């Protein structure tokens, strides 16, 4: 039951990720990305990583997607202003894509199948257990992350306001 559910959700994730790439309309592709993130949330729940599932749901599906939509709206999406790509650029794209493909195929061939990782403690990803670890062993990185958020805030304001 759990395995067939996994295969269904995995199929849906791959399907919607491909839809993100193949739709012409950028807004549609963002909407497909939301569905892809939602399938990831279900993956996390199946893995019993409930904190990650909630983070994925609230931050990625909620906040990051809003950001993506705003980025799209900052762009000019009118078709007539889209500059035509020159043939040289197209050739460069093909060469770069081929290089990436060769690298990927080569690295996949070099892969060895490792033993599956068995989680010793299946309750590791629950919010309560994770909070205990976060506020004891990883307290310093947690406090420093507040500085990271602060600098991100200052940076965003500096970049967006003209008279900085």
């Amino acid at each position: 039951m759990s395995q067939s559910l996994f295969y269904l959700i995995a199929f849906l994730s791959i399907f919607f990720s491909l839809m993100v790439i193949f739709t012409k309309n950028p807004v549609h592709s963002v909407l497909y990305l939301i569905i892809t993130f939602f399938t990831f949330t279900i993956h996390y729940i199946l893995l019993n990583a409930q904190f990650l599932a909630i983070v994925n749901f609230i931050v990625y599906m909620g906040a990051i997607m809003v950001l993506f939509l705003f980025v799209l709206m900052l762009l000019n999406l009118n078709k007539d202003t889209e500059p035509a790509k020159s043939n040289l650029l197209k050739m460069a794209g093909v060469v770069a894509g081929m290089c990436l493909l060769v690298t990927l195929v080569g690295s996949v061939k070099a892969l060895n199948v490792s033993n599956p990782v068995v989680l010793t403690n299946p309750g590791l990803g629950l919010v309560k257990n994770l909070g205990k670890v976060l506020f004891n062993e990883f307290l310093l990185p947690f406090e420093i992350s507040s500085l990271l958020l602060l600098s991100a805030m200052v940076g965003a304001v500096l970049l967006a306001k003209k008279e900085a």
Partner: protein
Amino acid sequence: MEAQSTPVNYLPIIFQMIVALGFVVVTMVVTHLVGPKRKTSDKLIPFESGIESIGNARQPFSIKYFLVAILFVLFDVEVIFMYPWAVNFRDFGWAGVIEMFIFMGTLLLGFIYVLKKGALDWE
């Protein structure tokens, strides 16, 4: 003593989502099937508060919306960190309160900076 839970415990949430989605889909389909349809050219034009629509919606617009969105993301991340803290609130005691207040104080400084800079002023 550690909290225990399995993915099966999320079954009610799945049911709730199915019901919510099902309600939306059923309502939309049924209103399409049941309601009368009179299509005139006036009815099919895009509705824009009773004013005739000008141009299209694909215009690049002000960076201010983006700034609000990015600040929303940052404070959203802050709230996410509060979740494991709130669940463990009693176990941590006063030490946990102090730890969290240092974190929140730093972000509060950022918020004061944002307000002082007038980043949220809309003119």
